[in-house]
Protein backbone atom coordinates (compact mmCIF):
# COMPACT_ATOMS: atom_id res chain seq x y z
CA UNK A 1 0.00 0.00 0.00
CA UNK A 2 1.10 3.56 0.22
CA UNK A 3 2.54 3.58 3.71
CA UNK A 4 5.70 5.58 4.00
CA UNK A 5 8.91 3.90 5.08
CA UNK A 6 9.85 4.39 8.70
CA UNK A 7 6.47 5.75 9.71
CA UNK A 8 5.10 4.16 12.84
CA UNK A 9 1.59 5.59 12.76
CA UNK A 10 -0.68 5.20 9.77
CA UNK A 11 -1.82 8.79 10.06
CA UNK A 12 -0.48 11.35 7.58
CA UNK A 13 -0.14 15.07 7.21
CA UNK A 14 -1.96 16.75 4.33
CA UNK A 15 -0.37 19.46 2.19
CA UNK A 16 -1.96 21.71 -0.41
CA UNK A 17 0.42 23.47 -2.81
CA UNK A 18 -1.03 26.17 -5.06
CA UNK A 19 -4.32 24.32 -5.53
CA UNK A 20 -6.82 26.00 -7.85
CA UNK A 21 -10.05 24.88 -9.41
CA UNK A 22 -12.82 26.47 -11.43
CA UNK A 23 -16.24 25.27 -12.46
CA UNK A 24 -16.84 26.91 -15.80
CA UNK A 25 -15.85 30.53 -15.32
CA UNK A 26 -16.38 30.47 -11.56
CA UNK A 27 -13.18 30.14 -9.56
CA UNK A 28 -13.93 27.84 -6.62
CA UNK A 29 -10.42 27.41 -5.22
CA UNK A 30 -7.84 30.11 -5.74
CA UNK A 31 -4.21 29.17 -5.03
CA UNK A 32 -4.73 27.25 -1.79
CA UNK A 33 -1.59 26.58 0.28
CA UNK A 34 -2.09 24.71 3.51
CA UNK A 35 -0.29 22.28 5.81
CA UNK A 36 -2.30 20.08 8.16
CA UNK A 37 0.01 18.17 10.55
CA UNK A 38 -0.61 14.44 11.01
CA UNK A 39 -3.16 13.54 13.66
CA UNK A 40 -4.63 17.03 13.94
CA UNK A 41 -8.18 18.21 13.48
CA UNK A 42 -8.83 21.10 11.11
CA UNK A 43 -12.16 22.85 10.74
CA UNK A 44 -12.92 24.60 7.46
CA UNK A 45 -15.34 27.44 7.97
CA UNK A 46 -16.74 30.00 5.62
CA UNK A 47 -19.94 31.02 3.84
CA UNK A 48 -21.78 28.71 1.44
CA UNK A 49 -19.95 28.60 -1.88
CA UNK A 50 -16.64 29.57 -0.30
CA UNK A 51 -15.00 26.35 -1.52
CA UNK A 52 -14.98 24.25 1.68
CA UNK A 53 -16.63 21.23 0.11
CA UNK A 54 -14.57 21.39 -3.08
CA UNK A 55 -11.34 21.63 -1.08
CA UNK A 56 -12.30 18.50 0.86
CA UNK A 57 -13.34 16.58 -2.22
CA UNK A 58 -10.04 17.33 -3.91
CA UNK A 59 -8.22 15.42 -1.16
CA UNK A 60 -9.79 12.07 -2.08
CA UNK A 61 -10.11 13.09 -5.73
CA UNK A 62 -13.90 13.15 -5.95
CA UNK A 63 -12.86 16.43 -7.58
CA UNK A 64 -9.64 17.03 -9.45
CA UNK A 65 -7.89 20.39 -9.07
CA UNK A 66 -7.11 22.28 -12.29
CA UNK A 67 -3.64 23.03 -11.00
CA UNK A 68 -1.49 22.59 -7.92
CA UNK A 69 -0.63 19.52 -5.92
CA UNK A 70 -2.03 17.78 -2.84
CA UNK A 71 0.01 15.39 -0.72
CA UNK A 72 -1.24 12.96 1.90
CA UNK A 73 1.93 11.92 3.65
CA UNK A 74 4.42 11.17 0.89
CA UNK A 75 1.71 10.37 -1.61
CA UNK A 76 0.74 12.92 -4.21
CA UNK A 77 -2.98 12.31 -4.64
CA UNK A 78 -3.08 14.73 -7.57
CA UNK A 79 -0.65 12.54 -9.52
CA UNK A 80 -2.63 11.73 -12.69
CA UNK A 81 -1.30 8.17 -12.71
CA UNK A 82 -2.22 7.20 -9.17
CA UNK A 83 -5.02 4.61 -8.85
CA UNK A 84 -7.97 6.55 -7.45
CA UNK A 85 -9.47 3.55 -5.71
CA UNK A 86 -6.28 3.20 -3.67
CA UNK A 87 -6.25 6.89 -2.72
CA UNK A 88 -9.87 6.73 -1.66
CA UNK A 89 -9.48 3.53 0.30
CA UNK A 90 -6.96 5.33 2.52
CA UNK A 91 -8.82 8.63 2.87
CA UNK A 92 -12.32 8.27 4.26
CA UNK A 93 -15.15 10.68 3.56
CA UNK A 94 -18.41 11.38 5.38
CA UNK A 95 -21.07 13.18 3.37
CA UNK A 96 -23.65 15.76 4.31
CA UNK A 97 -26.48 13.46 3.22
CA UNK A 98 -24.93 10.29 4.70
CA UNK A 99 -25.29 8.41 1.41
CA UNK A 100 -25.67 5.09 3.15
CA UNK A 101 -26.54 2.17 0.90
CA UNK A 102 -30.29 1.83 1.51
CA UNK A 103 -30.48 -1.80 0.37
CA UNK A 104 -27.97 -2.96 2.99
CA UNK A 105 -28.14 -3.27 6.77
CA UNK A 106 -25.98 -1.00 8.92
CA UNK A 107 -23.41 -3.76 9.35
CA UNK A 108 -23.37 -4.53 5.62
CA UNK A 109 -22.91 -0.85 4.86
CA UNK A 110 -19.80 -0.87 7.01
CA UNK A 111 -18.41 -4.23 5.91
CA UNK A 112 -18.80 -3.70 2.16
CA UNK A 113 -15.61 -1.66 1.78
CA UNK A 114 -13.42 -4.01 3.85
CA UNK A 115 -14.84 -7.00 1.98
CA UNK A 116 -14.69 -5.64 -1.58
CA UNK A 117 -11.70 -3.29 -1.38
CA UNK A 118 -9.54 -4.67 1.43
CA UNK A 119 -10.53 -8.22 0.36
CA UNK A 120 -11.26 -9.39 3.90
CA UNK A 121 -13.30 -12.59 4.18
CA UNK A 122 -16.96 -11.91 5.00
CA UNK A 123 -16.62 -13.07 8.62
CA UNK A 124 -13.67 -10.78 9.33
CA UNK A 125 -15.31 -7.90 7.51
CA UNK A 126 -18.46 -8.33 9.58
CA UNK A 127 -16.42 -8.49 12.79
CA UNK A 128 -14.67 -5.28 11.78
CA UNK A 129 -18.06 -3.72 11.00
CA UNK A 130 -19.48 -4.66 14.38
CA UNK A 131 -16.39 -3.26 16.08
CA UNK A 132 -16.77 0.05 14.26
CA UNK A 133 -20.53 0.22 14.92
CA UNK A 134 -19.77 -0.38 18.61
CA UNK A 135 -17.25 2.45 18.45
CA UNK A 136 -19.91 4.91 17.28
CA UNK A 137 -22.39 3.54 19.83
CA UNK A 138 -24.61 1.63 17.41
CA UNK A 139 -23.71 -1.99 18.16
CA UNK A 140 -27.35 -2.94 18.69
CA UNK A 141 -28.41 -1.50 15.32
CA UNK A 142 -26.20 -3.75 13.19
CA UNK A 143 -29.17 -5.39 11.46
CA UNK A 144 -31.19 -2.22 10.90
CA UNK A 145 -31.69 -0.82 7.45
CA UNK A 146 -30.71 2.84 7.03
CA UNK A 147 -34.35 3.86 6.60
CA UNK A 148 -35.11 2.47 10.06
CA UNK A 149 -32.49 4.71 11.67
CA UNK A 150 -32.65 8.36 12.65
CA UNK A 151 -30.53 10.86 10.75
CA UNK A 152 -28.01 11.04 13.58
CA UNK A 153 -27.72 7.27 13.67
CA UNK A 154 -27.34 7.11 9.90
CA UNK A 155 -24.52 9.60 10.01
CA UNK A 156 -22.78 7.58 12.74
CA UNK A 157 -23.10 4.47 10.55
CA UNK A 158 -21.51 6.51 7.76
CA UNK A 159 -18.63 7.39 10.09
CA UNK A 160 -18.22 3.72 11.02
CA UNK A 161 -18.22 2.87 7.30
CA UNK A 162 -15.35 5.29 6.72
CA UNK A 163 -13.42 4.08 9.79
CA UNK A 164 -13.68 0.43 8.76
CA UNK A 165 -11.28 1.15 5.90
CA UNK A 166 -8.58 2.15 8.45
CA UNK A 167 -8.06 5.49 6.73
CA UNK A 168 -5.03 7.69 7.38
CA UNK A 169 -7.21 10.78 7.07
CA UNK A 170 -10.94 11.40 7.36
CA UNK A 171 -12.89 14.11 5.55
CA UNK A 172 -16.20 15.42 6.90
CA UNK A 173 -18.35 17.40 4.48
CA UNK A 174 -20.77 19.37 6.65
CA UNK A 175 -21.72 16.19 8.49
CA UNK A 176 -24.44 17.74 10.64
CA UNK A 177 -26.03 20.16 8.17
CA UNK A 178 -28.76 17.74 7.11
CA UNK A 179 -29.70 16.81 10.67
CA UNK A 180 -32.48 18.03 12.89
CA UNK A 181 -30.96 20.18 15.65
CA UNK A 182 -31.58 17.65 18.41
CA UNK A 183 -29.58 14.99 16.52
CA UNK A 184 -26.49 17.10 15.85
CA UNK A 185 -24.98 16.48 19.26
CA UNK A 186 -24.60 12.68 18.99
CA UNK A 187 -22.67 13.03 15.73
CA UNK A 188 -20.39 15.77 17.02
CA UNK A 189 -19.66 13.67 20.10
CA UNK A 190 -18.41 10.79 17.94
CA UNK A 191 -16.28 13.22 15.95
CA UNK A 192 -14.85 14.72 19.10
CA UNK A 193 -13.81 11.24 20.25
CA UNK A 194 -12.11 10.71 16.89
CA UNK A 195 -10.25 14.00 17.14
CA UNK A 196 -8.38 12.67 20.16
CA UNK A 197 -7.14 9.69 18.17
CA UNK A 198 -4.18 9.43 15.85
CA UNK A 199 -6.00 10.34 12.67
CA UNK A 200 -5.96 13.49 10.57
CA UNK A 201 -9.42 15.04 10.35
CA UNK A 202 -10.67 17.79 8.07
CA UNK A 203 -14.15 19.02 8.90
CA UNK A 204 -16.11 21.45 6.76
CA UNK A 205 -18.65 22.77 9.21
CA UNK A 206 -20.96 25.54 10.34
CA UNK A 207 -20.74 24.36 13.96
CA UNK A 208 -18.60 27.13 15.41
CA UNK A 209 -18.77 25.84 18.96
CA UNK A 210 -17.49 22.47 17.78
CA UNK A 211 -14.64 24.19 15.94
CA UNK A 212 -13.84 26.23 19.01
CA UNK A 213 -13.74 23.22 21.30
CA UNK A 214 -12.26 20.49 19.10
CA UNK A 215 -10.16 21.95 16.29
CA UNK A 216 -6.40 22.29 16.47
CA UNK A 217 -6.57 24.55 13.48
CA UNK A 218 -9.35 26.64 11.97
CA UNK A 219 -9.22 27.73 8.33
CA UNK A 220 -11.54 30.48 7.11
CA UNK A 221 -12.26 30.30 3.39
CA UNK A 222 -14.01 32.99 1.40
CA UNK A 223 -14.27 33.24 -2.36
CA UNK A 224 -11.99 30.23 -2.77
CA UNK A 225 -9.15 31.82 -0.81
CA UNK A 226 -7.78 31.18 2.65
CA UNK A 227 -8.43 34.46 4.41
CA UNK A 228 -7.31 33.48 7.91
CA UNK A 229 -6.06 30.39 9.66
CA UNK A 230 -4.72 29.46 13.07
CA UNK A 231 -5.76 28.02 16.42
CA UNK A 232 -9.48 28.47 17.17
CA UNK A 233 -8.90 30.96 20.03
CA UNK A 234 -7.12 33.22 17.59
CA UNK A 235 -9.26 32.81 14.47
CA UNK A 236 -12.68 32.65 16.13
CA UNK A 237 -12.23 35.09 19.00
CA UNK A 238 -9.90 37.69 17.60
CA UNK A 239 -10.35 37.78 13.83
CA UNK A 240 -8.29 40.37 12.00
CA UNK A 241 -9.88 40.53 8.54
CA UNK A 242 -13.15 42.32 7.93
CA UNK A 243 -14.41 39.37 5.91
CA UNK A 244 -14.03 36.97 8.85
CA UNK A 245 -15.42 39.52 11.30
CA UNK A 246 -18.53 39.96 9.21
CA UNK A 247 -18.88 36.16 8.71
CA UNK A 248 -18.61 35.50 12.44
CA UNK A 249 -21.12 38.21 13.23
CA UNK A 250 -23.59 36.43 10.96
CA UNK A 251 -23.19 32.98 12.54
CA UNK A 252 -23.90 32.78 16.23
CA UNK A 253 -21.02 31.39 18.21
Amino acid at each position, binding site marked *: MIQEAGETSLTSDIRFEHVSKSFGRRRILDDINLLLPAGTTTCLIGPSGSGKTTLLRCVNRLETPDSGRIFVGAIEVTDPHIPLSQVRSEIGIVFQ*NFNLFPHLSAADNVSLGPRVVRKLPQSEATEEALRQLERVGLGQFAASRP*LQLSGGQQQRVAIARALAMKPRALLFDEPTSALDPELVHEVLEVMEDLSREEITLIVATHEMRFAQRVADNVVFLDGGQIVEQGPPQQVLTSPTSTRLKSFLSRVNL
Partner: protein
Amino acid sequence: MSIGVTRIADTFFDLRILQRVFPQLIETGLPNTLILSVGAMAVGLVAGLIFALVLLSKRPWVRAIGRTYVNIFRGIPHIVSIYIIGEGLPLAGISIFGSNTYLYAMLAIGIVEGSYISEILRSGIRGIAKGQFEAGEGVGMTHSQVMRHVILPQAARNILPALTGQLNLVIKNTALVFLLGLGVNQRELFSIAQDSSSNNASLTPFVAAGIMYLAITLPLSYFVTRLDRRMGRGGGRVRGVSKNRDFMAPDFPTEPLEHTSMSTGGAG
Protein backbone atom coordinates in the same frame (compact mmCIF):
# COMPACT_ATOMS: atom_id res chain seq x y z
CA MET B 1 -83.21 -12.27 -25.27
CA SER B 2 -82.25 -15.87 -24.70
CA ILE B 3 -81.45 -16.19 -28.41
CA GLY B 4 -79.02 -13.30 -28.00
CA VAL B 5 -77.35 -14.94 -25.01
CA THR B 6 -77.08 -18.25 -26.82
CA ARG B 7 -75.53 -16.56 -29.79
CA ILE B 8 -72.90 -14.85 -27.63
CA ALA B 9 -72.16 -18.13 -25.89
CA ASP B 10 -71.83 -19.97 -29.19
CA THR B 11 -69.55 -17.36 -30.62
CA PHE B 12 -67.11 -17.07 -27.73
CA PHE B 13 -67.68 -20.11 -25.51
CA ASP B 14 -68.68 -22.97 -27.78
CA LEU B 15 -68.19 -25.88 -25.37
CA ARG B 16 -67.73 -28.45 -28.12
CA ILE B 17 -64.86 -26.44 -29.59
CA LEU B 18 -63.39 -25.57 -26.21
CA GLN B 19 -63.21 -29.26 -25.42
CA ARG B 20 -61.33 -29.93 -28.62
CA VAL B 21 -58.94 -26.95 -28.56
CA PHE B 22 -57.89 -26.85 -24.89
CA PRO B 23 -55.93 -30.13 -24.95
CA GLN B 24 -54.00 -28.90 -27.99
CA LEU B 25 -53.35 -25.54 -26.37
CA ILE B 26 -52.11 -27.13 -23.18
CA GLU B 27 -50.07 -29.95 -24.70
CA THR B 28 -48.50 -28.18 -27.67
CA GLY B 29 -49.20 -24.45 -27.48
CA LEU B 30 -48.32 -23.75 -23.86
CA PRO B 31 -44.87 -25.41 -23.85
CA ASN B 32 -44.00 -23.78 -27.17
CA THR B 33 -45.11 -20.33 -26.03
CA LEU B 34 -43.12 -20.77 -22.81
CA ILE B 35 -40.00 -21.89 -24.69
CA LEU B 36 -40.26 -18.94 -27.06
CA SER B 37 -40.93 -16.55 -24.18
CA VAL B 38 -38.01 -17.69 -22.09
CA GLY B 39 -35.64 -17.66 -25.07
CA ALA B 40 -36.79 -14.23 -26.22
CA MET B 41 -36.56 -12.87 -22.66
CA ALA B 42 -33.02 -14.19 -22.33
CA VAL B 43 -32.00 -12.51 -25.58
CA GLY B 44 -33.90 -9.35 -24.59
CA LEU B 45 -32.35 -9.12 -21.12
CA VAL B 46 -28.81 -9.70 -22.38
CA ALA B 47 -29.26 -7.21 -25.23
CA GLY B 48 -30.99 -4.83 -22.83
CA LEU B 49 -28.19 -4.94 -20.24
CA ILE B 50 -25.46 -4.55 -22.85
CA PHE B 51 -27.18 -1.62 -24.52
CA ALA B 52 -28.10 -0.02 -21.18
CA LEU B 53 -24.38 0.13 -20.38
CA VAL B 54 -23.72 1.39 -23.92
CA LEU B 55 -26.32 4.13 -23.39
CA LEU B 56 -24.58 5.11 -20.14
CA SER B 57 -21.13 5.28 -21.69
CA LYS B 58 -18.95 8.32 -21.18
CA ARG B 59 -18.09 8.35 -24.90
CA PRO B 60 -20.63 10.13 -27.10
CA TRP B 61 -20.03 7.88 -30.14
CA VAL B 62 -20.67 4.76 -28.06
CA ARG B 63 -23.89 6.28 -26.75
CA ALA B 64 -24.84 7.11 -30.34
CA ILE B 65 -24.68 3.42 -31.25
CA GLY B 66 -27.02 2.55 -28.40
CA ARG B 67 -29.33 5.41 -29.24
CA THR B 68 -29.55 4.24 -32.87
CA TYR B 69 -30.45 0.68 -31.83
CA VAL B 70 -33.13 1.90 -29.42
CA ASN B 71 -34.61 4.40 -31.86
CA ILE B 72 -34.79 1.93 -34.73
CA PHE B 73 -36.43 -0.96 -32.92
CA ARG B 74 -38.73 1.18 -30.81
CA GLY B 75 -39.76 3.13 -33.88
CA ILE B 76 -40.70 0.20 -36.11
CA PRO B 77 -43.81 -1.96 -35.61
CA HIS B 78 -42.83 -5.31 -34.08
CA ILE B 79 -44.36 -7.16 -36.97
CA VAL B 80 -42.02 -5.40 -39.41
CA SER B 81 -38.88 -6.04 -37.33
CA ILE B 82 -39.80 -9.68 -36.94
CA TYR B 83 -40.27 -10.13 -40.68
CA ILE B 84 -37.00 -8.38 -41.40
CA ILE B 85 -34.94 -10.32 -38.85
CA GLY B 86 -36.76 -13.66 -38.79
CA GLU B 87 -37.38 -14.02 -42.54
CA GLY B 88 -34.69 -11.71 -43.75
CA LEU B 89 -31.59 -13.19 -42.13
CA PRO B 90 -31.94 -16.69 -43.64
CA LEU B 91 -33.02 -15.24 -47.00
CA ALA B 92 -29.99 -12.99 -47.04
CA GLY B 93 -27.82 -16.05 -46.50
CA ILE B 94 -27.09 -15.20 -42.86
CA SER B 95 -28.34 -18.61 -41.75
CA ILE B 96 -26.77 -18.50 -38.28
CA PHE B 97 -29.38 -20.89 -36.93
CA GLY B 98 -29.82 -23.10 -40.02
CA SER B 99 -33.52 -23.56 -40.59
CA ASN B 100 -34.53 -23.41 -36.93
CA THR B 101 -37.51 -21.04 -36.98
CA TYR B 102 -37.63 -20.85 -33.18
CA LEU B 103 -34.12 -19.50 -32.82
CA TYR B 104 -34.73 -16.81 -35.45
CA ALA B 105 -37.97 -15.96 -33.66
CA MET B 106 -36.28 -15.71 -30.27
CA LEU B 107 -33.56 -13.56 -31.74
CA ALA B 108 -36.03 -11.28 -33.51
CA ILE B 109 -38.34 -10.79 -30.53
CA GLY B 110 -35.39 -10.54 -28.16
CA ILE B 111 -33.70 -7.82 -30.18
CA VAL B 112 -36.90 -5.82 -30.40
CA GLU B 113 -37.63 -6.19 -26.68
CA GLY B 114 -34.01 -5.49 -25.81
CA SER B 115 -34.43 -1.97 -27.14
CA TYR B 116 -37.20 -1.32 -24.62
CA ILE B 117 -35.46 -3.18 -21.81
CA SER B 118 -32.22 -1.21 -22.32
CA GLU B 119 -34.11 2.04 -21.79
CA ILE B 120 -35.78 0.65 -18.66
CA LEU B 121 -32.42 -0.44 -17.24
CA ARG B 122 -30.72 2.80 -18.22
CA SER B 123 -33.26 5.00 -16.48
CA GLY B 124 -33.27 2.63 -13.49
CA ILE B 125 -29.53 3.07 -13.11
CA ARG B 126 -29.70 6.81 -13.70
CA GLY B 127 -32.44 7.04 -11.10
CA ILE B 128 -29.99 6.09 -8.36
CA ALA B 129 -28.77 9.24 -6.64
CA LYS B 130 -25.27 10.38 -7.56
CA GLY B 131 -24.38 10.25 -3.87
CA GLN B 132 -24.51 6.47 -4.06
CA PHE B 133 -21.73 6.40 -6.66
CA GLU B 134 -19.68 8.79 -4.56
CA ALA B 135 -20.22 6.82 -1.37
CA GLY B 136 -19.10 3.64 -3.11
CA GLU B 137 -16.10 5.30 -4.69
CA GLY B 138 -15.43 7.07 -1.39
CA VAL B 139 -14.53 3.78 0.30
CA GLY B 140 -12.24 2.94 -2.61
CA MET B 141 -14.41 0.75 -4.81
CA THR B 142 -13.76 0.86 -8.54
CA HIS B 143 -16.49 1.96 -10.89
CA SER B 144 -17.48 -1.60 -11.73
CA GLN B 145 -17.45 -2.65 -8.07
CA VAL B 146 -19.80 0.23 -7.26
CA MET B 147 -22.05 -0.85 -10.13
CA ARG B 148 -22.17 -4.43 -8.94
CA HIS B 149 -22.51 -3.96 -5.17
CA VAL B 150 -24.29 -0.63 -4.85
CA ILE B 151 -26.06 0.52 -8.00
CA LEU B 152 -27.44 -2.57 -9.73
CA PRO B 153 -29.05 -4.08 -6.61
CA GLN B 154 -30.90 -0.82 -6.04
CA ALA B 155 -31.71 -0.32 -9.70
CA ALA B 156 -33.10 -3.86 -9.86
CA ARG B 157 -35.75 -2.97 -7.33
CA ASN B 158 -36.60 0.31 -9.04
CA ILE B 159 -37.06 -1.24 -12.46
CA LEU B 160 -38.97 -4.31 -11.34
CA PRO B 161 -42.47 -3.01 -12.16
CA ALA B 162 -41.52 -1.67 -15.58
CA LEU B 163 -39.46 -4.73 -16.40
CA THR B 164 -42.34 -7.03 -15.49
CA GLY B 165 -44.60 -5.14 -17.84
CA GLN B 166 -42.04 -5.56 -20.58
CA LEU B 167 -41.64 -9.29 -19.93
CA ASN B 168 -45.40 -9.62 -20.18
CA LEU B 169 -45.15 -7.98 -23.59
CA VAL B 170 -42.49 -10.50 -24.60
CA ILE B 171 -44.89 -13.33 -23.78
CA LYS B 172 -47.67 -11.72 -25.78
CA ASN B 173 -45.40 -10.90 -28.70
CA THR B 174 -44.42 -14.54 -29.15
CA ALA B 175 -47.79 -14.73 -30.95
CA LEU B 176 -46.08 -12.99 -33.87
CA VAL B 177 -44.00 -16.08 -34.55
CA PHE B 178 -46.77 -17.43 -36.75
CA LEU B 179 -45.50 -14.96 -39.37
CA LEU B 180 -42.39 -17.05 -39.83
CA GLY B 181 -44.32 -20.24 -40.60
CA LEU B 182 -44.50 -23.08 -38.12
CA GLY B 183 -44.71 -26.86 -38.36
CA VAL B 184 -47.69 -28.58 -36.68
CA ASN B 185 -45.79 -29.37 -33.50
CA GLN B 186 -44.08 -25.98 -33.45
CA ARG B 187 -47.33 -24.08 -33.16
CA GLU B 188 -47.69 -21.89 -30.10
CA LEU B 189 -50.90 -20.73 -28.45
CA PHE B 190 -51.87 -18.17 -31.05
CA SER B 191 -51.28 -20.23 -34.17
CA ILE B 192 -53.18 -23.20 -32.73
CA ALA B 193 -56.08 -20.88 -31.98
CA GLN B 194 -55.85 -19.38 -35.44
CA ASP B 195 -55.92 -22.79 -37.15
CA SER B 196 -58.73 -24.04 -34.99
CA SER B 197 -60.66 -20.85 -35.56
CA SER B 198 -60.59 -21.14 -39.33
CA ASN B 199 -61.34 -24.89 -39.24
CA ASN B 200 -64.40 -24.42 -37.05
CA ALA B 201 -65.49 -20.99 -38.29
CA SER B 202 -65.58 -19.86 -34.65
CA LEU B 203 -63.91 -17.29 -32.46
CA THR B 204 -64.01 -19.57 -29.43
CA PRO B 205 -60.42 -20.84 -29.90
CA PHE B 206 -59.12 -17.29 -29.53
CA VAL B 207 -60.97 -16.94 -26.26
CA ALA B 208 -59.37 -20.19 -25.13
CA ALA B 209 -55.94 -18.90 -26.18
CA GLY B 210 -56.59 -15.66 -24.30
CA ILE B 211 -57.30 -17.65 -21.17
CA MET B 212 -54.04 -19.53 -21.67
CA TYR B 213 -52.06 -16.29 -22.03
CA LEU B 214 -53.64 -15.02 -18.82
CA ALA B 215 -52.64 -18.26 -17.12
CA ILE B 216 -49.02 -17.25 -17.79
CA THR B 217 -49.07 -13.49 -17.40
CA LEU B 218 -51.21 -13.16 -14.26
CA PRO B 219 -49.05 -15.47 -12.09
CA LEU B 220 -45.96 -13.65 -13.36
CA SER B 221 -47.34 -10.30 -12.26
CA TYR B 222 -48.44 -11.75 -8.94
CA PHE B 223 -45.06 -13.32 -8.32
CA VAL B 224 -43.25 -10.07 -9.07
CA THR B 225 -45.55 -8.10 -6.75
CA ARG B 226 -44.70 -10.55 -3.98
CA LEU B 227 -41.00 -10.31 -4.76
CA ASP B 228 -41.18 -6.52 -4.79
CA ARG B 229 -42.82 -6.51 -1.37
CA ARG B 230 -40.28 -8.94 -0.01
CA MET B 231 -37.45 -6.71 -1.16
CA GLY B 232 -38.79 -4.28 1.40
CA ARG B 233 -39.90 -1.39 -0.74
CA GLY B 234 -41.77 1.21 1.28
CA GLY B 235 -40.72 -0.28 4.62
CA GLY B 236 -39.36 1.74 7.56
CA ARG B 237 -39.68 5.47 7.91
CA VAL B 238 -36.94 7.98 8.55
CA ARG B 239 -37.18 9.73 11.84
CA GLY B 240 -35.44 12.99 12.62
CA VAL B 241 -34.11 13.66 9.14
CA SER B 242 -34.81 16.95 7.48
CA LYS B 243 -32.84 17.24 4.26
CA ASN B 244 -31.72 13.84 3.07
CA ARG B 245 -34.42 13.35 0.48
CA ASP B 246 -32.07 12.50 -2.37
CA PHE B 247 -30.96 9.56 -0.30
CA MET B 248 -34.18 7.70 -0.89
CA ALA B 249 -34.53 5.69 -4.05
CA PRO B 250 -36.89 7.55 -6.36
CA ASP B 251 -39.91 5.74 -7.70
CA PHE B 252 -39.54 4.56 -11.24
CA PRO B 253 -39.31 6.31 -13.63
CA THR B 254 -37.53 9.35 -12.36
CA GLU B 255 -34.35 10.88 -13.60
CA PRO B 256 -32.64 13.50 -11.53
CA LEU B 257 -32.13 16.48 -13.78
CA GLU B 258 -28.77 17.56 -12.44
CA HIS B 259 -27.31 14.08 -12.81
CA THR B 260 -24.95 14.87 -15.65
CA SER B 261 -22.03 12.55 -15.17
CA MET B 262 -22.35 9.26 -13.39
CA SER B 263 -18.70 8.51 -13.31
CA THR B 264 -16.40 10.71 -11.35
CA GLY B 265 -13.64 8.33 -12.28
CA GLY B 266 -13.01 4.77 -11.20
CA ALA B 267 -9.74 3.00 -11.02
CA GLY B 268 -7.09 5.13 -12.63
